[in-house]
């Protein structure tokens, strides 16, 4: 393998703020309803959260990520302890003391025997009245609404304390003018796109994404080969685990790769360009054809160019350099991992690209369908260049986390994808595995295959003939 080196035109500096809310940054705004929004905090820019109110970007700058706020009058905010406050949290807020008191002062029931579901009749406050209150705006209007709703609830005292709390939480989610500013990391961006349209991120869950990163051993300084059809979520996660150091060659099937997610990442274009090297499949498989011949013009000719001509010249030079660089990287191979999240047919893809993976390096394939990976695993099991292909499914089950009332939540997302993990190896020609019983010459080849299958986890027990 020839070692190909390339001098970067300039060192990109990693200076992305990850702990502090900074002006101009793309951030995630999390609402009490658990919905999230992506917002760029422009100077003086107002952020409209619909029924939750409006705040000015400048108000939240300078706080650490994760900070929660309550919207006050004049687009101002005040920092608060947490987005939703439960009954027993001792932290802060007159509000919570007030509702605590409210609940304490009102009677509650031992059980729900007295609860009769008669819908709207039980609530004396009308929607119009609530809307009217909302119109008045101002600080603490959410709190006022909730207090009134509870006061006008005929059967609030018939509820148990538990159900009173749940009711309160529901109303808080609906009326509280609060929000949290979160860091727009890969997990948050994934969650955001997942909410909008799961198919856009190939149904990928955070746990699948995290496991991909670990199984592929992604770290600072690595050189990776990536196929990513999630709009760049996988790419972003890798960038975060490399912090600007290393190289990601992204193979794609279009004129340009789709990394739209990277726009939320707050990485500079220079930094992205220094790490991410796109290559399309034509360039990948037909390198000699696709390399761009380039000779620098003599300096006096460049000097004599008009401004726009010169710009064009440098653009073409840049493109030739980039394309040739990416092709050279692929030709020299020896990647530290192959990471694939694609809808392209994986069994044929793997045969064609695994040569590019370095010895003992991991290969991780993500698919929203297990069947795709099953087929790929069958192909891998027969390929002596692949060791121990394994399909994983990982799912996170959330629980209601209230002491004394801990239980799994009633519903959770049903899918999150599957992973196929394998290791690239170099088979040795003409060696024989230890078989069962005496090894006869004519059986050696057969036994070798059996033992290989055994090692690589392919099923052999039921089906292999006894020697």
């Amino acid at each position, binding site marked *: 393998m020839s070692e190909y080196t390339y001098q970067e035109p300039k060192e990109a500096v990693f200076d992305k703020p*990850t*702990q*502090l809310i*900074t002006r*101009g*940054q793309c951030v995630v705004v999390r609402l009490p309803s658990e919905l999230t929004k992506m917002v760029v905090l422009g100077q003086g820019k107002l952020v409209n959260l619909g029924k939750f109110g409006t705040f000015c970007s400048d108000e939240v700058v300078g*706080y*650490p*990520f*994760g900070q929660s706020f309550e919207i006050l009058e004049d687009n101002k905010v005040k920092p608060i302890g*947490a987005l939703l406050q439960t009954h*027993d949290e001792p*932290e802060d807020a007159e509000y919570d003391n007030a509702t605590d008191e409210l609940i304490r002062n009102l009677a509650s029931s031992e059980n729900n025997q007295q609860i009769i579901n008669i819908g709207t009749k039980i609530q004396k406050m009308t929607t119009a009245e609530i809307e009217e209150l909302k119109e008045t705006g101002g600080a603490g209007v959410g709190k006022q609404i909730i207090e009134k709703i509870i006061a006008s609830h005929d059967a609030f005292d018939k509820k148990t304390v538990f159900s009173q709390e749940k009711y309160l939480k529901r109303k808080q989610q609906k009326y509280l003018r609060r929000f949290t500013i979160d*860091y727009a*990391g*890969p*997990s948050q961006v994934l969650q955001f796109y997942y909410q909008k349209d799961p198919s856009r991120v190939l149904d990928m869950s*955070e*746990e699948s*994404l*995290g*496991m991909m990163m*670990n199984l592929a051993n992604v*770290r*600072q*300084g690595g050189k990776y080969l990536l196929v990513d059809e999630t709009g760049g979520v996988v790419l972003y*996660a890798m960038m*975060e*685990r490399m*912090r600007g150091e290393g190289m990601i060659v992204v193979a794609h099937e279009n004129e340009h790769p789709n990394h739209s997610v990277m726009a939320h990442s707050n990485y500079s*274009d220079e930094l992205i360009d220094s790490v991410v090297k796109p290559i399309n499949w034509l360039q990948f498989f037909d390198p000699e054809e696709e390399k761009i011949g380039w000779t620098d013009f003599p300096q006096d000719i460049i000097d004599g160019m008009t401004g726009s001509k010169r710009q064009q010249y440098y653009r073409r030079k840049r493109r030739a350099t980039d394309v040739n660089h990416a092709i050279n990287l692929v030709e020299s191979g020896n990647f530290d991992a192959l990471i694939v999240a694609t809808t392209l047919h994986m069994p044929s893809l793997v045969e064609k690209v695994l040569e590019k993976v370095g*010895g*003992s390096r991991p290969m991780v394939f993500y698919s929203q369908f297990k*069947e795709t990976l099953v087929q790929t695993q*069958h192909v891998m*099991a027969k390929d002596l260049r692949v*060791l*121990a*292909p394994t*399909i*994983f499914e*990982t*799912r*996170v*089950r959330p*629980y209601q*986390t209230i*002491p*004394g009332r*801990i239980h799994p939540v009633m519903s959770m997302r049903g899918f999150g994808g599957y992973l196929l993990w394998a*290791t690239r*190896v170099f088979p*040795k020609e003409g*060696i*024989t595995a*230890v078989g069962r019983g005496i090894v006869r010459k004519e059986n050696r080849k057969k036994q070798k295959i059996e033992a290989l299958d055994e*090692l690589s986890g392919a*099923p052999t027990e*039921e089906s292999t003939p*006894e020697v």
Partner: protein
Amino acid sequence: MSFTAYKDTIEEGDFVFCWISREIIKPIHVKAGEVLGTRFGIFSHDDMIGSLYGAQISSAKGYGFIHLLHPSPELWTLSLPHRTQIVYTPDSSYITQRLGITVGTRVIEAGTGSASFSHSFARTIGREGKLFTYEFHEPRYVEAKQELEEHGLTNVEITHRDVCNGGFEIEENGASKDIRANAVFLDLPSPWTAIPNLSSVISKDSRVGVCCFSPCIEQVTKTVEALMAHGWSSIEMVEVSAKRWEARKQMVRRVDDAVERLRDVKRRKDAGIQRRKDDIAREALEGTEPSIGDKRPASETPQPEEKTKETGFNPFGKGVRVRDGDPQWEWINVSKVESDIKSHTSYLTFAYMDPNIRVVNPVEEVAEIIA
């Protein structure tokens, strides 16, 4: 530096993971003249020196082989000597992702245990990051310390300490070390006794995430109460369940073929009866009287295997050893879950501490923003 960067060729003194089977991965330090004995044969270290990582080598006798793999935290998790129950990759990778642990993160881990997660943390946090890991059991601490040093994990600092009673602070030159952790992982029998000790060692100017790893629901209850009492919020407990699937092949056995085979069996049975009848009739004509049930001489009896294989209709390869995927038959790709799954590892309780302060006044802010 085997856990922090790949190299291609094995040299003397290198750390090599010998892949013997899925269940047996043997980590060794390569030393000229030494051998590795396995159930697949004896392998000479001399053969390993100069080989590529990923290479397959054969035993001294010429048959039997192993693969020589490069160390990685995930392979280490599969091969390490268990001093305690360990944190497996589906849990550790999720915790890492959810707590946003990346290059530069400062992490607290207690206890170290078998140091499986420590290796994974050390890889992910890189040179700029720092892992402070604590182990209260002295023999385990000594072993782990030696291991971390041997593995070149210079971004890990291990301390022999019971963090529940002694806290997390580390003395250095008479002063307390600046730990400023951004993420905390507590794998302790009673995390609620360690939670009060965290306040002095976590970052004061950024959000801090904690994950408590406990197998029992009673532990979760006490942990959540302690987290609430000490100002942690966004508390959520989850469970990770992971399964391994195996790819298999199932033969396509059509009911039409089953019917056809029955028809064929019947046809041959009828033919046999007819032949028997004919024999009896012929024998009666010829004057010999065989008693009922007499067998024909062995030489006239067709061999059963031959009959099935050659004369009968045998669409499913009955009586023949068929290899899965044999192109003579039709197959579909199927999968089944591994025979034993880890149905419960531990509950993961996550929570966050927000400093609730404005670190930078936007008026004085000078940081240049990237577009």
